[in-house]
């Protein structure tokens, strides 16, 4: 981590008079204030001069204490191991700012969400339409404004649906979803085909919006992990970890070493069952039935171990603000060791067989290519980004829990096709086993929990974790009574769904679609908290 005063002077020098203020707001976090109209230029400067990676954009209603709204952009400065917030204070009566989409394509959905949920207008946005709220949500009701309560009943209006212009002659629109077979969540794709070729796709997600950010406001501290765990069940541990780390940073409390190590262990167990399930689903898409069963068996072993350790197959209820809710005895750790041995042996064989299966490879190679420049423009994260040349991993770039104390590699590929996304996850599975072995070998003793005092009012904090699907960030602002005044969650899937659309048109046929969808392995609920 570099000295933040040096970073501040570099920021002042690079941005010049567009910078109204620069200061360190927490360890490893720097905040700069800019005028709303200067945002596009400042963003360009930050990306060019600092290689700043855009990670989030959200708004905050400053009333009733102050006037107006605050727009916050969060960037990651990986080389400096710092987080950078860009604040722009907006007018109370006509809150607006210049849209950043041209300079930063990834900002598209974030700006639409701010417009829809807070009533802040991004001027010159190319397609300003609702994103996450229901189609019958009335205009002028903004859930992120301070007057809105989660218990509030909202009267629906005549729903407005987006309608695509009818397909020209020779082009066929193929609707898929939102209700589908199996246990797939709800999502609607409109696939546009010319003969066999996929020429375009329209994506309709957000059937699962639960208003989780709003629900968390005013909730007691010990209840908050219950809410974070339900953002996406298959990333429950990563989300509750990011939340708890944010709360611990707000309270300036360090968790005991044993809790940090065990959190790392559990986070890797979560990655393991996700990556094993991913391979099983992909084998199902390519019709490799035996391989699917083999990976599902291993995944089930992981889930059963989770139930043995945490009392819950998906690791709910483990993270609490201040550490973990329970410690593990030697017998439980022995069960982890045994599973690691089995997985190491089986994964080697299965990977070898899988990569030698021509029918599997044929479906994956050159399919659903997400080009590295697109992945960068849309700030793709996690295994999806790493398969398209985005060399980022929060475990390495912003180490948390005990990741600074273990040794592991971050696999990165440039090809960006379904094969690369598979290969990355196969490699990450082996790295997870490597991390768990190190944790088991150097697990410190002592307590796993330290109580948190009441959070200081007005304190803001960021927590982060590399979930199996990529980075997730939880930002929170503490209110007067020690509960949250504003809770903001940026999930990995929200970042990656935008990039998903770019991997479809141009080089794929209709029957490639299930393979592409599985190879991204995105979460619907995760994008729609």
């Amino acid at each position, binding site marked *: 981590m570099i000295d933040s005063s040096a970073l501040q002077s570099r920021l002042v020098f690079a941005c010049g008079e567009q910078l109204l203020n620069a200061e360190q707001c927490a360890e490893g976090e720097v905040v700069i204030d800019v005028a709303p109209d200067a945002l596009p230029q400042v963003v360009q400067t930050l990306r060019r001069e600092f290689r700043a990676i855009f990670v989030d954009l959200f708004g905050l209603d400053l009333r009733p204490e102050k006037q107006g709204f605050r727009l916050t952009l969060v960037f990651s400065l990986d080389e400096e191991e710092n987080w950078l917030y860009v604040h722009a204070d907006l007018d109370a009566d006509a809150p607006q700012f210049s849209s950043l989409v041209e300079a930063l394509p990834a900002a598209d959905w974030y700006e639409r969400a701010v417009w829809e949920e807070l009533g802040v207008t991004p001027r010159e946005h190319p397609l300003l339409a609702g994103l996450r709220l229901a189609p019958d949500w009335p205009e002028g009701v903004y859930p992120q404004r301070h007057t809105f309560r989660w218990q509030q009943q909202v009267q629906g209006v005549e729903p407005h649906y987006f309608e695509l212009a009818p397909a020209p002659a020779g082009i066929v629109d193929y609707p898929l979803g939102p209700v589908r077979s199996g246990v797939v969540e709800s999502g609607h794709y409109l696939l546009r085909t010319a003969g066999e070729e996929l020429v375009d796709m329209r994506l309709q997600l957000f059937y699962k919006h639960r208003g989780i950010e709003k629900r968390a406001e005013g909730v007691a501290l010990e209840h908050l992990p219950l809410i974070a765990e339900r953002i996406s069940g298959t990333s429950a541990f990563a989300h509750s970890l990011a939340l708890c780390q944010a709360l611990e940073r707000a309270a300036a409390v360090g968790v005991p070493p044993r809790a940090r190590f065990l959190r790392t262990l559990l986070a890797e167990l979560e990655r393991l069952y996700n990556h094993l399930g991913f391979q099983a689903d992909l084998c199902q898409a390519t019709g490799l039935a035996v391989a699917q069963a083999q990976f599902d068996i291993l995944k089930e072993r992981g889930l059963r171990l989770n139930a*043995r350790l945490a*009392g819950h197959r998906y690791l*709910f209820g483990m993270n609490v603000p201040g550490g973990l809710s329970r410690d593990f005895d030697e017998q439980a750790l022995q069960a982890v060791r045994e599973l690691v041995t089995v997985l190491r042996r089986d994964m080697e064989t299965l990977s070898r*067989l899988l990569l030698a299966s021509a029918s599997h490879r044929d479906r994956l190679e050159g399919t659903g290519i997400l080009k590295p420049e697109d992945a960068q423009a849309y700030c793709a994260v996690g295994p999806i980004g790493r398969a398209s040349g985005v060399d980022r991993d929060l475990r390495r770039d912003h180490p948390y829990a005990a990741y600074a104390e273990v040794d592991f590699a971050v696999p990165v590929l440039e090809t960006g096709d379904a094969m690369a996304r598979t290969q990355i996850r196969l490699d990450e599975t082996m790295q997870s086993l490597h991390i768990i072995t190190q944790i088991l070998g150097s697990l410190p003793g002592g307590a796993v929990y330290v109580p948190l005092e009441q959070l200081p009012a007005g304190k803001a904090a960021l927590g982060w974790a590399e979930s199996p699907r990529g980075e997730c960030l939880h930002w929170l602002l503490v209110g007067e009574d020690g509960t949250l005044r504003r809770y903001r969650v940026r999930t990995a899937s929200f970042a990656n769904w935008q990039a998903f659309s770019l991997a479809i048109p141009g080089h794929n046929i209709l029957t490639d679609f299930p393979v592409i969808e599985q190879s991204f392995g995105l979460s619907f609920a995760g994008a729609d908290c």
Partner: protein
Amino acid sequence: MILSWLRRGLRTGVLTTRYPVAREEMPREFRGRPALDAERCLAGQGCDRCVQACLPVALSLATVTSSGRDKSAHTAPQLTLDYGRCIMCGLCVAACPADALRMVGDYELASTASDDLRVSAVFTQEADASGRDYEEKNNGRYA
């Protein structure tokens, strides 16, 4: 290659369990539903700690009118546990000062009527013939 997979699959054999014909045993630590022991419960003495600890409002306290042995109507506290709202987090168990709640391994809660998922106890303040000062209401499934 198909042969290699085939060999692998055959060597693994059948791992599918016989559920639901045979019960699937859960590890000791597994959190199924919370079970209420009305005999230990202190709701009759004004305790509401579990209700305070319950985020999804699966536990609730109400005041009901009950008729005692002298046939006169008087009010009594009623604690209701609704498995339809419960998220099996276990925070009520940790909050209970009298060990009246504990997590059991039972996870088979599917039901065709939401009423079946509610269990409750009315604390009558006076003991009946068998010495019990509470009345339990449930459909018999959650004894």
